[in-house]
């Protein structure tokens, strides 16, 4: 609240003017889930590096929350209390976003999330400052269901989730959309590796497709055990499985598994991909493009002459423009407008996720 003893950061000698700002990026930069967040922050950094701000100097401050809401609140209070921050990229996860968005609201500081997809963030309890570049989970559930029925032609889907804030509502939504095309539903846990009870349920249900709402760590052993049991039904998961490590984790058993993601494929030959590679020594990972876009929106606001939080917020609210990930605009809740929502099905072939088909829910 009162960080007047300023020693670090701000750091540009050329500043002088009144255009010396910071943008915070808040998310799990360490801990088990860091690999889902770091690429997006790197993407934001890339956007900043490529920006020619003229008089303006902007720094990107990375705040680690370990994805833990309890650790995110002091961070949010800090950002909200420091006037040199004019925008926040994040929160990366829904939980920390839920915990902090009222703080940012109180501080009047605009947020653009690259990856928080929980439905309630905008649909049940919207705040003005919150925006996101990814469509919320309801769409994804519908998209997966649509893929299952239309592309796979499934009529007996077995739905499994991981009982967590991400997997469960997603599976709920899939179940809702599928209606009686779902044969059975089962719940598992994060950290589980033995799925025998679930497999035996599958064996008796004889599904013609399997949908899993959860993360890679559990999807890998689950898939292996499904295939070991001789079940060959197609396997499809949500964006929790999207990531370069999916192929490495699932191995041979994962051949042909499908991952649904709101992220449009990044052309490997695009300048973004190569720039990213040059800068960070790897292909752009999850939400790198969204991170890039989020930063670009804020930078555009500064370009537009915005110099206060209110200005930036007003600018973001009305922003429309073409982004790397999609055409960017926010509806009154801060969401991607319904007509902009689209999903891609990626198929795991030879350990790589390759785009298969675009699905609009």
């Amino acid at each position, binding site marked *: 609240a009162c960080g007047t003893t300023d020693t670090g950061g701000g750091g540009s000698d050329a500043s002088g003017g009144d255009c010396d700002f910071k943008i915070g990026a808040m998310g799990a930069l360490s801990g088990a*889930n860091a690999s889902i967040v770091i690429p997006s922050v790197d993407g934001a950094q890339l956007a900043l590096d490529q920006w020619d701000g003229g008089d303006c100097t902007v720094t990107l401050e990375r705040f680690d929350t370990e994805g833990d809401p309890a650790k995110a609140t002091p961070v949010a209070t800090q950002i909200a209390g420091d006037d040199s921050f004019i925008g926040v990229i994040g929160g990366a996860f829904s939980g920390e976003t839920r915990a902090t968005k009222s703080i940012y609201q109180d501080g009047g500081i605009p947020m653009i999330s690259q990856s928080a997809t929980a439905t309630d963030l905008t649909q049940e309890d919207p705040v003005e400052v919150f925006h996101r570049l990814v469509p919320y989970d309801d769409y994804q559930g519908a998209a997966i269901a649509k893929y299952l029925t239309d592309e796979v032609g499934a009529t007996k889907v077995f739905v499994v989730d991981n*009982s967590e804030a991400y997997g469960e509502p997603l599976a709920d939504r899939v179940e809702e959309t599928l209606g009686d095309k779902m044969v059975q539903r089962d719940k598992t846990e994060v950290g589980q590796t033995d799925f025998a009870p679930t497999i035996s349920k599958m064996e008796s249900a004889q599904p013609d497709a399997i949908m899993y709402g959860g993360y890679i760590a559990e999807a890998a052993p689950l898939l292996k055990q499904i295939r070991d049991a001789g079940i060959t039904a197609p396997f499809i998961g949500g964006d929790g499985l999207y990531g370069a490590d999916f192929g490495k984790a699932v191995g041979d*058993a994962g051949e042909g598994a499908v991952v649904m993601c709101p992220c449009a494929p990044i052309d490997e030959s695009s300048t973004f991909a190569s720039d990213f590679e040059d800068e960070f020594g790897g292909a752009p990972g999850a939400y790198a493009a969204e991170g890039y876009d989020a930063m670009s929106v804020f930078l555009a606001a500064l370009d537009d002459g915005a110099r206060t939080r209110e200005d930036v917020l007003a600018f973001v609210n009305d922003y429309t423009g073409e982004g790397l990930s999609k055409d960017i605009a926010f509806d009154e809740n801060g969401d991607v407008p319904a007509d902009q929502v689209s999903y891609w099905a990626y198929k795991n072939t030879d350990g790589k996720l390759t785009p298969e088909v675009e699905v609009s829910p």
Partner: protein
Amino acid sequence: MDFDALISGLDRHTLDGITRGSIYALVALGYTMVYGVMKLINFAHSEVFMVGTWAVLGTYTVIGATAGMGAGMVIAATVLALLVAMLASAGTALAVERIAYRPLRKKGAPPLIFLITGIGCSMVLVETFGQLLRFFFGQPFGRVTVNIPSVLETKTLFTIPGVDLAVSNTRVLIIVGAIVMMLALDTFVNKSRLGRGVRAVAQDPDTASLMGVNQERVIMLVFVLGGAMAGVAALLYTVQYDITKFDIGFIIGLKAFTAAVLGGIGNLRGALVGGLFLGIVEVYASAVWDSSWTNVYAFVVLVVVLMFRPTGLLGESLGKARA
């Protein structure tokens, strides 16, 4: 709630439960041995197991083992991986003993302190595989899940007549492996001279030394044996689940510890009984309901058992002491 599913698939669920429980049991041995002798919960034991899984991966990578090799190669690779895993785990266990426990023993610290250094060691090991090694070696280390090649491909080995239950080679390996190791260890501790030394130290270290037992050696032995069993568990685990990850030890460790207590911590056979019992309970309950409550079933069963048998199913044995 679906009791029909449980009843109709009882044979299948039992087999699943035994498979799951066998691995718990092997890991539980490490807890139970250390506890029996030193009255301390070796919190780092879960990571001893985790290191074993990486050793398996390392072995396969180095010798280039993959799925679909010839039978002879499969056996050779598996046996090699087993040995490496046992070595790696035993070495880790020993290192933990040396670094985190021995200095405390020399200072006569109370058990609670050992618990904290154990937790500390566990964190260090987890971070080593989740962070430090990635820093030096890059992939596959890091915080992501890594696939371990199915060197031993799952095949149906035979079908139990009557119930028509197909039993795969991996399951046979796991169950037989666990039970054989357990019996071997049990025989060793109960019958051999060194084993008697272990039990003597468990009950009264001072007097044991008066009988000519070298306490430090016994403690080392206990960690090595417990670690080696975790190594065996690690191999069997990778055969069944095909993955590893820096934090894979935590949940298994928790369950194994529960199993050890369930069977009567300090009692080797208790570890087997506790492990199998826990595995079966979990699978049965998950068949009737679902797996999101697994830990709740496990702990409720634990509490119920302990209420009626306060020292676990088989009671304490390595170091039972009552005036």
